């Protein structure tokens, strides 16, 4: 069975989704979903282990060899991403049952889990596959389920946010489709590995250039990179809390993965970075993203909005690391990817707990919460510290590596700007701390209790992970380094 | 019951006409499909004398032969007037009385009127059909009642 792990990784949640419809009681469905997600997590652990020891794992679907059939190709990078996605999904699901009881009408619960599983499977599929068109198909599975999940939010603005996301997402996906079409036109293949071998022959043509442009723009739309980020804040803010926690921690990561996969593996380093002014473009956009989004975050009154903008800023950091285009830079990006998933997972889940107790995440409703929900608020504070990049948290580790990578390239001003960006993060995190701890509680809120255990456990798992990986960086750094080295074609 | 049998038989004919693959697998798949379709049709309540008008089967071909002749004549007329232009036409509504007793008879009559270019059945109210015609002549033709008579003959 070990040989079949790559496919099982995707197929387990995918098959579990329709099975959910046959279960009648929501509690049962929840348990079932949890088990499926847990299984996926287990598989991804074994896979990572396998990939780290033996190198890339290839799985040919239907028994047809690669350019003719579809293959799954799991290298260090994909294994790493698979682990992040399935881990976050499992942890977040612990709280799901309690949370959605509050936020989603009862007759939709089963559907929620079905869509959740489909979304998970879609993301895993994107990461695992080695076929360009298969990416598109699974991208659509995850996107469609995401739209529906967001629209399940209580607020009517959730609908509008979801619609905007749908339009943007579909344009993005269609752009990717055009790009894939152009690539196929020039090479006659859809397999990524095969593409990377055949593209250099035609790299000078204008068609390939256009293909590249379309794929990148399409991915950036999904990624919510700075100028194309408009859909993200509302989508995150009005989605059900669980969905926000899951998406914030995983969806953009998958998009970053695609960006890396296409630029490094498919088009190849020399094409992506030497022929085109991509480096400087991404650097500028990344930095702009950090500043604009962080500034916007400071002025938000809805905390979900606030953290959503902060997500865009954090994407900016990843883009900066990506634009450095050295092993160190990419390592920093991958590390930040992992760390950011941990932080945002913890933060949004904690917000979900707040939502569960007080039914709102407006900043002024947080008054006095520091005393009423001490554990939850402590989690938010630690997550916030991690966002800023205080030592002993994961945020510090990735920023440290990022600054090192930038300096290694001799880009001193950029390093300074990154640090300045962190100062902005201090401002918006401080606003929450100030209100929650130093303002008296609102009248009539004395009855608010600490969040239930079903929230606290997953939140604190993530928070402790934040601290653990901030102190003991060996595991995450080792994997990230191995992944980026293999992308640069160096053996670890 | 007889409707079911007729339906199954005509479905089978339809399948064979379309398929053209007479392997055992395909034939058995066809049989299964027909069974399912008949079941669904029963559930939908579309199997009755209206939908499978077997009492008409014998007389229909003769009627259609006559109808086709009518259609050709009417067609040529309309085409002539298309090329002659707007001035030559004299459109108007009229009401004709249908002497058919059953719904299916009325439907055949109404559809025959519509099939003949130059006249369209617009509305059914009991046994009164409202017809729109392109030309006065077509109205006269209809009011002579030949078509009506032929359709009624079909019924008995």
């Amino acid at each position, binding site marked *: 069975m070990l040989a079949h792990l790559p496919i099982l990784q995707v197929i387990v949640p995918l098959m579990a989704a329709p099975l959910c419809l046959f279960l009648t009681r929501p509690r049962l469905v929840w348990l079932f979903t949890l088990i499926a997600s847990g299984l996926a997590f287990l598989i991804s652990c074994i896979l990572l282990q396998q990939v780290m020891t033996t190198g890339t794992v290839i799985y040919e679907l239907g028994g047809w060899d690669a350019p003719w059939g579809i293959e799954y190709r799991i290298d260090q990078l994909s294994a790493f991403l698979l682990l992040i996605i399935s881990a976050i999904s499992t942890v977040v699901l612990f709280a799901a049952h309690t949370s959605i009881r509050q936020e989603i009408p009862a007759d939709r619960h089963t559907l929620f889990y079905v869509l959740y599983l489909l979304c998970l499977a879609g993301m895993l599929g994107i990461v695992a596959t080695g076929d360009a068109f298969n990416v598109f198909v699974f991208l659509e599975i995850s996107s469609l389920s995401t739209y529906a999940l967001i629209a399940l939010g209580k607020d009517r603005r959730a609908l509008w946010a979801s619609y905007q996301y749908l339009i943007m997402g579909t344009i993005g996906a269609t752009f990717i489709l*055009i790009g894939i079409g152009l690539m196929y036109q020039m090479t006659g293949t859809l397999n990524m590995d095969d593409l990377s071998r055949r593209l250099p022959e035609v790299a000078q043509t204008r*068609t390939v250039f256009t293909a590249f442009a379309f794929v990148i723009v399409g991915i950036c739309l999904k990624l919510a990179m700075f100028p194309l980020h408009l859909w993200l804040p509302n989508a995150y803010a009005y989605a059900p809390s669980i969905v926000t926690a899951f998406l914030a921690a995983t969806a953009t990561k998958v998009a970053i993965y695609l960006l890396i996969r296409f630029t490094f593996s498919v088009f190849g380093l020399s094409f992506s970075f030497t022929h085109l002014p991509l480096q400087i473009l991404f650097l500028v956009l990344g930095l702009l993203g950090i500043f604009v989004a962080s500034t916007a975050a400071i002025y938000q009154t809805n905390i979900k909005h606030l953290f959503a903008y902060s997500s865009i800023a954090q994407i900016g950091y990843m883009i900066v690391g990506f634009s450095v285009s050295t092993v160190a830079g990419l390592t920093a990006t991958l590390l930040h990817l992992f760390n950011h998933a941990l932080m945002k997972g913890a933060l949004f889940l904690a917000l979900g707990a707040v939502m569960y107790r007080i039914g709102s995440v407006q900043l002024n409703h947080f008054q006095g919460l520091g005393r009423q929900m001490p554990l939850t608020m402590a989690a938010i504070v630690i997550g916030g510290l991690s966002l800023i990049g205080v030592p002993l948290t994961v945020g510090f580790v990735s920023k440290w590596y990022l600054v090192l990578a930038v300096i290694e390239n001799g880009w001193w001003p950029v390093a300074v700007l990154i640090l300045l960006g962190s100062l902005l993060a201090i401002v918006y995190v401080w606003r929450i701390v100030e209100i929650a701890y130093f303002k008296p509680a609102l009248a009539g809120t004395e009855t608010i209790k600490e969040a239930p255990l079903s929230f606290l456990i997953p939140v604190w798992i993530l928070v402790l992970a934040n601290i653990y990986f901030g102190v003991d960086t060996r595991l995450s750094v080792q994997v990230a380094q191995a992944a980026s080295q293999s992308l640069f074609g160096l053996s670890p | 019951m007889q409707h079911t049998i007729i339906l199954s038989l005509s479905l089978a004919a339809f399948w064979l006409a379309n398929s053209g693959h007479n392997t055992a697998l*395909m034939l058995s798949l066809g049989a299964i*499909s027909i069974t399912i379709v008949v079941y669904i049709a029963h559930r939908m309540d579309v199997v009755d004398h209206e939908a499978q008008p077997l009492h008409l089967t014998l007389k229909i071909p003769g009627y259609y032969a006559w109808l086709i002749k009518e259609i050709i004549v009417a067609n040529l007329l309309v085409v002539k007037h298309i090329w002659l232009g707007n001035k030559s036409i004299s459109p108007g509504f009229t009401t004709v009385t249908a002497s058919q007793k059953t719904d299916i008879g009325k439907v055949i009559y109404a*559809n025959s009127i519509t099939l003949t270019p130059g006249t369209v059945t617009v509305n059914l109210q009991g046994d009164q059909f409202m017809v729109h015609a392109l030309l006065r002549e077509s109205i006269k033709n209809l009011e002579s009642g030949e078509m009506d008579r032929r359709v009624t003959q079909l019924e008995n």
Partner: protein
Amino acid sequence: MAFLVGVAFAIVWMKDLLAVIMLLGIYGLLSASFFVAMDAVDVAFTEASVGAGISTLLMLVAIALTGRAEHPARHKPLLALAVVIFTGSLLIYGTLDMPYFGLAEAPIHQHVAPRYINDSMQEIGVPNIVTSVLASYRAFDTFGEAVVIFTAGMGVLALLSVARRREDDAKIDLLNIPMHEQHLIPRIVIKMLIPFILLFAFYVQFHGDFGPGGGFQAGVIFAAAIFLYTMLFGMSTAHRVINQSFIQMLAATGVLLYGSVGVVSLLNGKEFFDYSALSADPVGGQHLGILLIELGVGITVASTMVIIFFNFADRKEYPQRKKD
């Protein structure tokens, strides 16, 4: 081709959404004819049923719910135009180095495709190459496709489903009686046609190996027959005939059927979707596998389409009860 452009431009200017949708139907039919001219018969089949049929219908129901007039105000047309022109010229620029249209020497016809054309008969034994690529070489894509449509069905269900009550049914029945009278002719003709349409769907389902067609198209045709029935006999009758939760189960069953074909080959120690594991004779196994997964696709598509349509139509027919 220029014809298509004309229709598209007309769509831009039209304000009446109903007219826009009809033009969209024409656009769908036209592009489907174009697909036939381009040898893509399978695609034409699908586009005809989807582009001209299902999406037009869904659009119609949707605007019946939302209203048909478009506001004259448009925002940022200049900016939009700039973006569009930029993208368009980038694409034109990209086409400059493309192999010419119809050239047999283009790389796309040289690399992967020849194997499909030359060897699929020995390897799979199905004359329709599109089917063999779809259902065997790239079976996983098709599985994805089935899941996508399933996802959409679940999404629509999550967004639109309303709780029906018996009294509502009765009320609607009352409303519908005069409708039946008016639609005497269509009703009888459709009563005659429906069994044949259903059978035709099955025919398309099982003959996908030999000619154009297959699970997806069959599913759509099957669903179309049910739409037709629903439109003429009313929602409440349709609900009595087709049980909502049963159809949901059916949609799930379709996906599961497809997936379990893969699982069976897994259990037999072969790769996922390696149909040769299904039978002693590899080609026979392929044939069986294709038959089964096409059936899975057909079931999923038909039931999902029905779910989607019913939920839209329910929204329209049943009085709304706000929940939140």
